[in-house]
């Protein structure tokens, strides 16, 4: 699998603390309990800004996908990456790479799991999907 490096900033710091610990954190609304995506600044249901962090189950289902074809590497090896949109069991969507997947086997609804990958050992952990 290949993920790139990413620098944390004020909006992603807590989420990346979660990924470093092997967790995909969602925002849980203190007012209505709705689980919003990690990037939400307010509850996706009731607009409350009183949000806690809550780990997702890590279960997801495929919404759509693409096989991205990059330039072949120096030795001529094809550079293909499977990317997808997955609906987390809790409702929010997440866009990322799907690793260890045969694109021909992917369907809408294919069960996926969130795992984490690093560009280099010292880099941030990036959530990616793997067929469940």
């Amino acid at each position, binding site marked *: 699998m*290949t*993920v*790139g*490096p*990413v*620098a*944390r*900033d004020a*909006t*992603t710091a807590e989420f990346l603390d979660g990924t470093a610990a092997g967790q995909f954190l969602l925002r849980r609304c203190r007012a209505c309990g709705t689980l*919003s*995506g990690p*990037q939400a600044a307010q509850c*996706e249901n009731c607009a409350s800004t009183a949000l806690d962090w809550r780990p997702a189950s890590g279960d997801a289902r495929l*919404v*759509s*996908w*693409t*096989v*991205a*074809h990059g330039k072949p590497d120096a030795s001529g090896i094809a550079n293909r*990456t499977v*990317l*997808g*949109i997955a*609906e987390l069991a809790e*409702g*929010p*969507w997440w*866009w*990322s*790479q799907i690793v260890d997947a045969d*694109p021909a086997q992917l*369907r*809408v609804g294919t069960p996926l799991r969130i795992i984490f990958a690093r*560009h280099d050992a010292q880099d*941030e952990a*990036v*959530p*990616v999907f793997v067929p469940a």
Partner: protein
Amino acid sequence: MTIITYADAGPRSVPAGRRPVICGLGMTELGKVYGSGAAQFAGDAVRLAAADAGLALGDIDGLLVSSGVTGGVRLDLQLDLGLHDLALLSEMQAYGSTAAAMVQVASMAVQSGMAATVACVWADAPLRAGRDSAAAYGAAARVASGWRGLSAAAGITSANQRYAMAARRHMERYGTTSEQLGAIAVAQRGWAVLNPLAQLRTPITIEDYLASRWIAEPFRLLDCCLVSNGGIAVIVTSAGRAAGLRQPPVYVRGWAQAHPGRSGRRFDDFGLVSGAATAGPAALLMADVELGDIDVAELYDCYTYTVLVSLEDYGFCGKGEGGPFAASGALGPEGKLKVNTGGGQLSSYYMWGMTPLSEAVIQARGQAGERQVPAHELVLVSGNGGVLDHHSTLVLSATG
């Protein structure tokens, strides 16, 4: 979304002389044109549009500017053009929906008397000699931090990939096929063959389409728009002022926008429906015409798929039937529906929303030469920006 457009409050509600019209069109050389930045292209486009209209630059009292990925067209274009005492000046940005949106703002300004003659310009210069078009857009997309940076780290770096996932969802839901997407590419190339402004004028077949290399499945190279340098401007004024000018006026008869604001969670209709589904009916209502009255449709076509979903959402065919409709031979110069008559962004030139708008003006004036559609009274213009996030529609007419 509820349509709140008032059928009796559009241009039809004001005296005929105050109704907004497009009186000038300026297009620089487009495509692999090097040596100018976006601001220079923008200035050239406005000067060309004024000359086309038969106006002096000093007649312009409103200026709306916008640019593509490289930016660079800013408010100081006013100074580059030596425009003094403007009554309206702003930079606008809603991506591919901007061009039509600028015409909407200009039309409202003219109709209300806020400004008399408004130039709307868009320009970009992402191409550099010796560097391919993927590099031109890839460089702009590189992000190292934040939520976008997290997507990029995971490999999601381009609009090609995001739209490919929209198209894949449509295919999975409705059974849309590669051959059906290809029919759109082939049909539009058929129009481009007839267009001296087009960058790609060699006819293609469905076999050529299927043999073109993968970019991001289901998109092949021939599903994707060109990348072009250049600038295009239009000038909006009132029908009264346009009466003595050089070109036949093109009436701006109805308009609307739609910005869905996707939830990005369960039940999001991403890939299945675009803003055209609401902007289209609203613009037609303001124009007081029916979809069946439209003679020519110029639809934003960053990808073949964007045309397909727009055809469905405007109602030229049923939801989910865009594929069979395209494959039926309905599009192209011999087709029953005249769509993207210049070849569009797939085959002619990629000037974001200015591509459909410029071809619409040329067709409505009856100046399209070999590709002129005989019936060109009503022309629909569709803009689309972001990844199906921003939508704008214009209904133009050749007579008031």
